[in-house]
C-alpha cells in the first residue's frame, strides 16, 4: 500500500505543478504579449477611447507580475474577474454554458467505455475473421477524421436527406435533455474518435492477453470461455486502453468545442469561441483555466486507474 500512497503523493504533486503552470501559461499567453496588449486587443480599427478603456480595465499601467498576482489571488477565491465586453462576471458566463457541456460530456463518457470495450473484445474474439476485419478497418479509418468534417457529412445525410434527426440544436435553448433527438448526432460525432482509438487498444491488449500462458493454463483447467475472457483476460487488456484515456480527455475537450460550434449548442465551447471572436481576455482566461484544470484532474484520474489496474506499468509521476 505504501507504493500506492507514495506514488499518489508524487502524482498529486505533479498535478498541482501542472495546474500552477497552466495558470501561469494562460496568463502569459493572453496578457504578457510583446507590445501593448490594449492596442492588440482593440482590433483592426483601433479607437483611442477603446484603447484607453482597455488599459483601465486591464490595469496595464501596473507591472505584469503584479497583475498576475492579483489575477491568481482572485482565482484562489473563485473570482475570475469580469468580461471586457459586457462587464458581467466571468463566473456567470461559466454558469450559462456549464449545463449543456456537462450533459454532452457525461453522455459521451457513459457510452464511450462500454462501446469501445465491447467493440474491442468482439474484434479480438473473432481475430482475423470478417467481424474483426470490419471493426479494425472502420476504427482505423474513422480514427483520424476531424469531427467537423464527419459531423457535417452526418448532418447532410441523416438530417437533411433522410430527415430523421434535427440538424442543429437551434431553437431548443438550454433544454436539450427534453429533446433527446437533438443530442443523438452531437454525441455520435463526439464519440467517433475516442471509441475508435480505445477499441483498437482494447483489441490489441485482448489479443495479447488471450495468447498469454496463464490463459492457456486456465483453459487447461476447464474454466468456461466467458469467464476466461471477461474475468482473466479483459482486466489485463484494459491497461493500455486506460493509458490512452488521458489522450482521449484531450480529444473530448477539443471535440466539445467543435461539436458545440457545429450543432450550435450553447455550451462552454460556444462561450469560448465567442470570447475568442470578441477578444474578451478575462472570459478566455477563466474558461482556459477551467478547461485545462479539468484536463489535469481527468489525466490524474486516468493515471490513478492505470496504476491501480497494473502496478507494473510504471506510470510517470
Amino acid at each position: 500500500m505504501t507504493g500506492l500512497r507514495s506514488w499518489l503523493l508524487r502524482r498529486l504533486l505533479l498535478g498541482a505543478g501542472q495546474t500552477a503552470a497552466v495558470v501561469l501559461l494562460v496568463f502569459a499567453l493572453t496578457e504578457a504579449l510583446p507590445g501593448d496588449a490594449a492596442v492588440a486587443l482593440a482590433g483592426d480599427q483601433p479607437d483611442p477611447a477603446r484603447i484607453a478603456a482597455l488599459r483601465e480595465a486591464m490595469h496595464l499601467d501596473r507591472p505584469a507580475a503584479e497583475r498576475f498576482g492579483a489575477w491568481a489571488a482572485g482565482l484562489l477565491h473563485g473570482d475570475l474577474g469580469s468580461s471586457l465586453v459586457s462587464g458581467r462576471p466571468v463566473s456567470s458566463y461559466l454558469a450559462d454554458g456549464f449545463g449543456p457541456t456537462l450533459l454532452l460530456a457525461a453522455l459521451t463518457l457513459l457510452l464511450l467505455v462500454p462501446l469501445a470495450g465491447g467493440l474491442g473484445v468482439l474484434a479480438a474474439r473473432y481475430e482475423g475473421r470478417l467481424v474483426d476485419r470490419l471493426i479494425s478497418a472502420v476504427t482505423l479509418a474513422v480514427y483520424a477524421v476531424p469531427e467537423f468534417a464527419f459531423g457535417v457529412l452526418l448532418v447532410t445525410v441523416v438530417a437533411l436527406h433522410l430527415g430523421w434527426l434535427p440538424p442543429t440544436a437551434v431553437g431548443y435553448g438550454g433544454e436539450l435533455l427534453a429533446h433527446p433527438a437533438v443530442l443523438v448526432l452531437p454525441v455520435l460525432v463526439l464519440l467517433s474518435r475516442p471509441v475508435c482509438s480505445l477499441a483498437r487498444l482494447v483489441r490489441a491488449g485482448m489479443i495479447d492477453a488471450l495468447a498469454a500462458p496463464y490463459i492457456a493454463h486456465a483453459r487447461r483447467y476447464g474454466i468456461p470461455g466467458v469467464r476466461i475472457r471477461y474475468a482473466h483476460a479483459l482486466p489485463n487488456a484494459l491497461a493500455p486502453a486506460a493509458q490512452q484515456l488521458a489522450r482521449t480527455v484531450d480529444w473530448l475537450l477539443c471535440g466539445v468545442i467543435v461539436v458545440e460550434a457545429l450543432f450550435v449548442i450553447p455550451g462552454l465551447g460556444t462561450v469560448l469561441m465567442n470570447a475568442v471572436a470578441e477578444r474578451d481576455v478575462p472570459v478566455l482566461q477563466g474558461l482556459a483555466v477551467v478547461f485545462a484544470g479539468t484536463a489535469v484532474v481527468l489525466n490524474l484520474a486516468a493515471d490513478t486507474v492505470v496504476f491501480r489496474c497494473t502496478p507494473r506499468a510504471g506510470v510517470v509521476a
Partner: protein
Amino acid sequence: MTRRGPGRAGRWACALAILAVPLLLALFGPLFAGEPGPHAASFTAGGGHLAGTDFVGRDVWRQVLLGGRPVVVAALAATALAYAVALPLGLFSALTHRRWLDELLMRPLDVLLAVPSLLLILLVAAVIRPGAAGIALLVALVNIPDAARAVRAAAAEAASRPVVEALRMQGESWARTALGHVARSALRTLAADAGVRLTGVLYLVATAAFLGVGAAPDAADWAVMVDRNRTGMFVQPWAVALPALLIVALTMGTNLLFDAALTGRARGARAAREPRPDHPPADDPYPGPSRWEKPTP
C-alpha cells in the same frame, strides 16, 4: 496482430486510392483553377457551375481546386517544424548522463502535455490573429512535447546499447554518436511516430481553420469552406459536402497509408517505445532471457 499476405497489398491499394484524390487536388488543383469568374448569386446549383456557388457566389469547384494546398502545406510544415525542435531536444535528453539535465529538459514538456492542444491554439489565436504561417508555427509548438517524448523514448533505447558506450569511449564527437548511430537506429520508430503525428497535425490544422483560426474568413481552404457554407446547407449541400468529403479522404487516407506502411514494423516499434522486461524489442541485438520462451518440460 497477425496480418495475411494478400491483405497487405489490398491495404496499400485502399489507402492510396483514398488518399490520391485529395492529395492530387491539393498539389495540382491550383494549376487548373483558372481566373476567378464574376460572382454569381449565392448558393445556386448549376448555371454553368460544376458544383454550384458558395456563400458569396463564387464557383465551388474552383474553390475546391484551390483549397487543398493550404491544409496540406500547413500540416507538412508544422510536422517538420515540430521535429526540428523535438529531435535535438529528445536526442540530447536521451544521451546525457546527467539526470537533472534530462529532467530539466523533459519535465516542462510534461506540463504542456496537460493543456488541451486546441485550447492552447485558440488562446493564442484570440490575441494575435495568426496567418497561415502562424497557425503552422502554433500547431508545431503544440506538438513538440509529445514528439520530444517519442524521440527521447526511441533514442534512449538505442543509446543504452554497448555500441554507443564504445563510441563514447573512443572519443567520437557527440554529433557523430547522436546522428550517426542513435538517430539512425531510432529512425524506424520515429517514422512510425511521424505518421501518427502528421494525422494529428492535419486534424488540428483543419479544425482550427474550421473554427476560424489561421485562415481568412473568405479563404480558399477546404475547412473554411465547410464552415462558411454551412448556412446554405439546405439549398446547396455540395458547397459543404464536397470539401468535407475531401478532408475526410485526406485524413483517412493518410492514416491508412501510414498504417499499411508500418504494419510489419508496428510490433518492433511499440516494443521499443514501451520497453517491458518480458517483451524485448524486436530489433534488440542482445535480447535477455524471456520468461515466455522458457522451454516447456
